[in-house]
């Protein structure tokens, strides 16, 4: 028999197993803090101070619940989310959803290139140089198969986010005040507040994340026995997102908001790091924004193309050539090229693009959530791994609240215009 006792591999193997299972959750979480995320959280802090901080608690909870559900579906069924949607709901609903997802994700890709352009500007580089170079770089990295090794570089560079919690420590805000802001919801019925709340929801729980995480979990062939580890991965990812997001809001609240600065450009948002690094803040911020944007720009177009190909049964994969997988390559290339070109339109309000793409994420989220809830409770697919009753109550309630916020948002727009 091969047994752990006969060879000193037991512990190593367990650690190896852990590392093998870890990944989808943490990576998804770090890509989540992309250009749109940095901008939205910064604006939330700058415009409303600590007024929106409370929302981070329910949003984090929902993020973990939602990602745990797709993670579970990936492990149990070994299939992607769009695959399951197509088989369960047929071609019409799938087509509609995929169309919306494509538009929404395109908005996000645009935001990533806007982020690259904005970061370049701080370094004094014109967007006409940075955006085409980065678009080409991303395209080559992924199609030439070198992406997997570069991914680690991106992940390591995500250590940049530590700058925000550190900046908060340097500011040393009144702990009691911050704690109170976390637990005491302070609701402001103005249109700006509701839109910002939706933006935070949309950037933290972006619809592409569910498709991406389920696909990566399914691809990893994680066995049900290791599901505990996989769940830990997801929960840890959720906390990382939330810690960084809250720190950004707090740091901006005690710098930009107090100084009455509105975030119009990326350089404005950088001031939140001044307490930590002083004048170098804009450089540090630009570096972080650049890394986040490039990381997400590598993953988003790829994930979107995979998702659509899976739904419509087209061949996909970077290990196939153009002849075998034309839809995949056309989609992938078009997303990058169009995203980059849009970010280059003269006079493009980069920060606005980054923010509004996240609001649209928020509008699509309840739709995706309903699909997920119907699928995860289907015992033919999930067997005994369907949601518990409490789990369902919380999620359906969240979906209902999200629909209400979305409606409120649309109504306030219509009134405003």
């Amino acid at each position, binding site marked *: *028999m091969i047994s*752990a006792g006969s*060879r000193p591999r037991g512990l190593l193997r367990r650690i190896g197993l852990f590392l093998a299972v870890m990944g989808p959750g943490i990576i998804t979480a770090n890509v989540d803090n992309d250009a749109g995320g940095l901008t939205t959280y910064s604006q939330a802090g700058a415009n409303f101070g600590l007024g929106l901080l409370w929302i981070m608690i329910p949003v984090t909870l929902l993020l973990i619940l939602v990602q745990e559900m797709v993670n579970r579906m990936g492990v149990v069924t070994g299939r992607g989310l769009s695959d399951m949607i197509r*088989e369960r709901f*047929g071609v019409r609903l799938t087509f509609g959803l995929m169309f919306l997802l494509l538009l929404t994700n395109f908005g996000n890709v645009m935001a990533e290139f806007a982020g690259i352009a904005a970061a370049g500007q701080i370094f004094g580089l014109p967007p006409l140089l940075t955006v085409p170079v980065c678009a080409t770089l991303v395209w080559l990295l992924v199609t030439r198969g070198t992406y997997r090794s570069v991914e680690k570089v991106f992940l390591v560079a995500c250590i940049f986010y530590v700058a925000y919690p550190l900046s908060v420590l340097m500011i040393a805000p009144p702990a009691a005040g911050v704690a109170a802001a976390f637990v005491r919801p302070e609701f402001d019925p103005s249109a700006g507040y509701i839109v910002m709340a939706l933006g935070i929801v949309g950037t933290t729980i972006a619809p592409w994340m569910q498709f991406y995480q389920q696909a990566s979990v399914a691809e990893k*062939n994680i*066995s049900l026995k290791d599901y505990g580890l996989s769940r830990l991965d997801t929960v840890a990812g959720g906390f990382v997102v939330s810690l960084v997001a809250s720190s950004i809001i707090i740091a901006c609240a005690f710098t930009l908001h107090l100084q009455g600065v509105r975030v119009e450009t990326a350089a404005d948002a950088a001031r939140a790091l001044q307490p930590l690094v002083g004048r170098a803040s804009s450089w540090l911020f630009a570096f972080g924004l650049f890394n986040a944007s490039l990381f997400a720009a590598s993953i988003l177009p790829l994930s979107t193309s995979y998702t659509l190909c899976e739904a*419509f*049964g087209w061949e996909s994969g970077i290990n196939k050539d153009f002849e075998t997988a034309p839809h995949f390559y056309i989609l992938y290339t078009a997303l990058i090229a169009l995203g980059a070109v849009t970010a280059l339109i003269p006079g493009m309000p980069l920060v606005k693009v980054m923010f509004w793409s996240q609001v649209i994420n928020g509008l699509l989220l309840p739709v995706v959530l309903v699909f997920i809830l119907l699928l995860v409770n289907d015992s033919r697919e999930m067997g005994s791994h369907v949601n518990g009753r409490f789990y369902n109550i919380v999620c359906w309630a969240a979906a209902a609240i999200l629909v209400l916020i979305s409606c409120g948002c649309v109504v306030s727009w219509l009134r405003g215009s």
Partner: protein
Amino acid sequence: MKNEAAHPSFCFLSGMLRRRLRTPDGGPLGILADLKAALSERYPEVQSIVVAAGRNRLEIPATSANVASLAGGSGIMQDFEGTPVTLGASQFLVRETLLDRQVVDVHGAKVVRVNDVQLLCHGGRLHVVHVDIGLPGLARRLGFEKGIRSLASLMRKKPKDELVSWKYVQPLNETGAGPVRISLRQEQIRMLHPGELADIIEELDPEERLALVRSIDAAQVAEAIEETDGSVQAAIIRDLDSELAADILEEMEPAAAVDVVEMLSEETQQSIMAAMEEDEREQIEILSRAEEDTAATVMTLDFLSIPEDSTAGGALALVREKADQVEFIHYLYCLDPSGRLSGVVSLRNLILAGNGEPISSLMHSRLTTVHPDDPLEDLADAFLKFRFQALPVVDEEGVLEGVVTFQHSFDELLPFYGRASG
């Protein structure tokens, strides 16, 4: 209507689904929910029409009059006596089993998604003939096929219809009424190259993988599995019952089998090993105890050995007897009574020798051997230096433990060959 039935005509499942069905005097029957077909023929024949009226599902027979109505675009059913839907062993529901599902296109050796199903109406009978996997099929389901076709004609192109003949379709649905299995398609699967089969296996989700793996024989699965990614190998073996998993592992190269086994949990390992044949189990145990990156990890126990006191004729008889089980037959290893390696004789020498010639006079006894713990690098050096097809692996006492063949160790040793020549 009689005429329509006489001429063969094609129609699509999407055009029939949700059609309102009525009795000849206009009474509502319900909507067409599915078609039930039998697998007994080359192209499955539709046997009955599944009608949904509210929550009730009934089937009415696909008589020639009913088929003619359906093919002619009408919903009037001449024979409308309904019975509850039952599904026999070789019957399947066309919509439920195929539409929007993934199937294997054996001809193109890929996994595709079914957008529509094309049926042939001929002589009052309806047969499943093609599955539509193309863009026009998708557009038809969404109700804008005409739009796509006129757009294409504006661009002076014909939209590419992608219809896969039923001959080449392997349905994989294992849920519902049990696996759909047809001998014809299995023959098709059998003709696939292991690499192609591996590609298909990688694309499937676990349930479908199991359905496919269970339907083909262990030797072919083993060949295909060796070509797939490590995590896929482990996932397949993990989900199979131990007996079948053991059968497949026995068919694999021992070194490859060890890699798979080591990826499994201890429990799974033990139950699979228990189900294995004595010989194969022993091989895997020996290989799995090997230190990493040593000769022992790449050696095989699949070789021919003979006592040094036998004759060329005896040796040739052994070759004939074992040649279909043992892959490497170029050298025979000669052992002294205590199992120590005393020499090597090549197949060529055996053939050239007379039947009665003693092995001891034919064999080479100045041997290049390696030790189980020798690093791979030394092995590569030895192959490069001596150009042997295989090297025997012996322990301190000179007992033969296994053989490393050039061919099977090639992948593992490749990095070292590169280094040596550069």
